[in-house]
Structures are given as structure tokens and as C-alpha cells.
């Protein structure tokens, strides 16, 4: 049975602000190219961490939606 992919529910256990702050901290002092490269590496790592190709593809679609 297909389970709908839930991209919305918070899974950070109340620590969103910690994660967000760590993300910005990692970008501090980087020029735009270095920042974009950091983001690319991070996305690839998180893609593998998600461990679910269908979920990753759904996430890509959600992010691409404008």
C-alpha cells in the first residue's frame, strides 16, 4: 500500500531554532559560491540520510514549487 509522503510535520523535536542557527553559522564568512557549494553538499548528505528515494523526489518537487 502506498503511504502518502508527509513533508510537513515537524520532526525536529522543538529544536528547529538550534538547527537553523547551526545552518547560518556554517555559512558565516563564505562568499556566494562557497555558500552555494556548502548547500549542495548538505543537500546531498541529507538526501542520503532521508533514505527514501520517493520521499526525496517528492521533497525536490515541493521545493521547486513556486
Amino acid at each position, binding site marked *: 500500500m502506498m503511504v502518502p509522503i508527509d*513533508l*510537513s*510535520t*515537524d*520532526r*525536529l523535536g*522543538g529544536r*528547529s*531554532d538550534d538547527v*537553523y*542557527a547551526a*545552518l*547560518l553559522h556554517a*555559512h*558565516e564568512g*563564505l562568499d*556566494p559560491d562557497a*555558500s552555494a557549494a556548502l548547500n549542495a553538499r548538505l543537500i546531498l548528505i541529507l538526501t542520503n540520510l532521508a533514505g527514501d528515494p520517493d520521499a526525496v523526489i517528492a521533497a525536490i518537487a*515541493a521545493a521547486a514549487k513556486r
Partner: protein
Amino acid sequence: MARFAYAPFPYRTPPELSGGRTGPAPMAIVGAGPVGLAAAIDLALHGVKVVILDDNDTVSTGSRAICWSKRSLEIFDRLGIGERMVAKGVTWQVGRLFHRDREIYAFDLLPEQGHKMPAFINLQQYYVEHYLVERCADFPDLIDLRWKNKLIGVARRKDGVVASVETPDGTYDLAADWLIACDGARSRTRELLGLDFAGQVFEDRFLIADVEMTAEFPSERWFWFDPPFHQGQSALLHKQPDHIYRIDLQLGRDADPEEEKKPELVIPRIQAIVGDREFSLDWVSVYTFQCRRLDRFVHDRVIFAGDAAHVVSPFGARGGNGGIQDVDNLAWKLAMVIHGNADAALLASYDEERIRAADENIRHSARATNFMTPKSDMERIFRNAAIELAADHGFARRMVNSGRLSLPCSLAGLSLQTDGPDCAGAAPGLVCPDAPVTGADGRNSYLLDHLGGSFTLLAIGDIEAPSIPGLDIVRVGKRGFADPEGLVAARLGRDVLYLVRPDQHIAARFVASTPEGIAAAFARAIRMNPKRTEAAA
């Protein structure tokens, strides 16, 4: 409705200069703002004599601190002005966040019933100070409030402090055993002692305006990112009593503070928000924000509280509320030391507990300010991505940060608290949860009405509360208060005993009542050698 009428408080020649009776004061407090006045009242409730020095002779000009949290209201209630504040204030618990012209989400701060105090009220600082000054007058033998008495020197002695004070009649020296510096963000005491005040400065300027307007907006906090009326910046709207609205507008880094205060610039900005409604400007100020704190708050006999000890940006209402919680933490400790019921070592726990709280407040308010004022293109890109995703995705709403509103800091794991046991209810370190109770006489009240001011054993259900010197006893259950809605049991558990501090924080809890265990937890909570407690008993 009438606006607040500013009236100067009378200056009186201090006894040191009029030849009246003088003597060393146990306690000098510098600064008659909310923090200094609250400290004086809390100490007076413990029977400690206080002299308050203030360089001015009026309450604060402009609304300044307006958002008072549930925890502050509980403290103010213990001090005797909480109900008056709630009656006058605007109670709110819903916040709405807008991006451009649409609402992205709303939050409800206290969806739970059965608490005496609401999640937040808005009330101008001048009202709070006015109520506190009137409350001080209830203690004529204990509180000596001296207007137009300006601190110009501090000499630290081995067992006290000598404050040099300037008045319209000349200068005098005031000897005190202790001095509490509550003289605000630009603390003169801090400057006189040459203490470093390290931290972060934010470059963006903000306009804060109090606007009087009869139009009715709901009693909610409204925050906009990039609104159509103020493009590229943020805006915040809060309702206050007397038809006054607080409007905060981000101006950016290059704004000229003197120019931006001019009515010809301010009025069009307000009109852009409120439209055709008639309004008048009550107060305008332009700020930059900082997050700083002293390395430590206790400097021998000089102790810092409130903005004198730590400053935060206003997003999250953690400045005034943090200061009131400093007082709540400090007053009982000082009173125990002054009365000889604890050693001065107890005061080290004020540093331990309130530095944890200050760091928590600084962390939250700095993150909120960073979110609002991105420092780089990448910060702006992430910020806008979180806001855009928030419309469709719950997780992203948690990332959007317009201020994380003040909550009491947990003191769990710090040295006065005793850990364990794991059970339902509230853990040591937390503020004791409130709930409705009914007395044997049928009168309804709240649990927190009966706690605070002293160390108390709170026994819930079927558990013995042994008689221990220095501890009051409050029972909920068979021989005590009834729990009409079952909320005491739901929030605190059944058949459990709590050791509650004078500031209503839980020091320890017990599911099996042993006098030795309770006495040990009490000794720990006042940093007393257990042997001495037994000797005192």
C-alpha cells in the same frame, strides 16, 4: 479614555542632609524601575529594610516594556499588584504572522484553562511602575524611596558598600550592607565599578511608536515580514490599554535616528499601517538592539539585576520579564542571608541560576533578531525560504522566528535542586504549575495563591507531610484544599510531595516521605551544611 497622567513624585531632603535619624541600611537599591521597585517590595515582604535611590522623579516616559508574561504576573501577584495589572492590561494570547499581504500562520500561547494568570498582558511600563510605587507605600517602615537621589560613587567595603549620593540639597554617603544595582541598560553602578559588558550589537535601527487611536484592532500580536506598507522590512503591532497601540518598524542599517523621529517622517509610516483612521502620536523612539551580559552578577556586596546585568533585543519580551524573574530569584536568598538563616554562599546560586536564564534569553532574542535582520545574502535567502515554506509546511513555521516569547527558565540540574524520582507531575527546577483549588470554607482560589514567600511542603493526595522547622505545609487532598477540576492531580500527580521554594520553583519532589530526605533537600536548597540544619532544628 484618559491617557496616563505623568506627575512627579515628591523629593524630600534625605535624613543624612536634614539632620534626621540615620543609620546603616541593610539594603540599598539603585534604580526605581520595575526591577528595583519589585526588589524593594519582595524584600519588604521578608521584613528587610530598603533604601531605593533614583536619579529621576517620575515613572518611565513612553510605554517601554509592555508585554508581561504569565510568570511575571504570578510574581507581581505575590508582590500584591498582579490582579491590578491584569484588570488594567490588555490580555492576549494569539499571535499572527503575515508575509507580504497574507497570513502565514497564527499561534495560541495558552490554550489551557485553569491558570490564575493569562499567557500575556500588555501594559505600559509607566503603569507598572506607578502600581509598584503605590505598593511600596504599604511598607512605610521598611521602604524608603528617595527620588532625585543620584548615585555618583560606590565604595566596596569588606562587609558592605558605601554609596555616594547627589541630591538637590547636596551630596551624602549611604552605608549599606548590600547594594542591588537595578539601574538599567546604561547602569551607572556598572560603570562606576568598571565592569565589562560584553555581547553582540545589531546594526539595524527600529522605530518604536505609541499611537493613540480609537479604532479597534483585535487583542493579538501581529507581526509582518515584508508588508506592503513597509516593504523589505518587518513590522509589529501590539494593543495596549487606553487605546494606545505599539508599532515597531524595522528601518534598516542606514536610517538616521534623529531624522526618523521627526513627525513628518513618522506620521506617513503610521498612516501606511492604519489607513484613514484618526490617530495621534504619544511617544516615538529609535533604537538599535544589543544582547550583552555581565560576566557575573554578584560582586561581593554589589548585586546586579535586570537590564543592569543583561540586555536583550525586545523580540520575545525577555527584558522586563527577565528582570522581574531576577528579583524573584534574588530577594528570598538575600533575606535568608540577612536574617541569618543561610550563609552568603547561597548567593552564588543567584549567579548560577540567573546566568543560565540570561543566556537562554540572550540566545532566543539574538536568534529572533538575526532572523529579522539578515546579515548576508545567504541569511536572507534562508529566511525567505523558511517563510515561503511556512504557508504549506508545519515544520517551517517552527523555523520562522519573530520572537520566542518569554517563558520561565528551568532550574533543573542546578545545585539547589534535588533530582528525581521519575514520576508524573512537574520536575524539580520548574515553576510549580498553577491550578484551581477550593478551601475547606468553600472559597475558590488558585494553588499559586498559597505558595511562595517561604519554603513550603506541598502534599498532594495520600502522602504524609512531616513537620520540619522552616517549612510551611500546604495540602491538596483529604485534609487540605479540594481539587475541583482535577487539574492539580493532572499537572502535579497523585500522592506526591513537593518542596517548593519561596520563588515557587520546585526544589525537590518525593513519592515516599522521609523526614531525613526532605531535610536534606531543604538543606541543599539553601546551601546549608545538613549538620547545621539539624542543630538549628
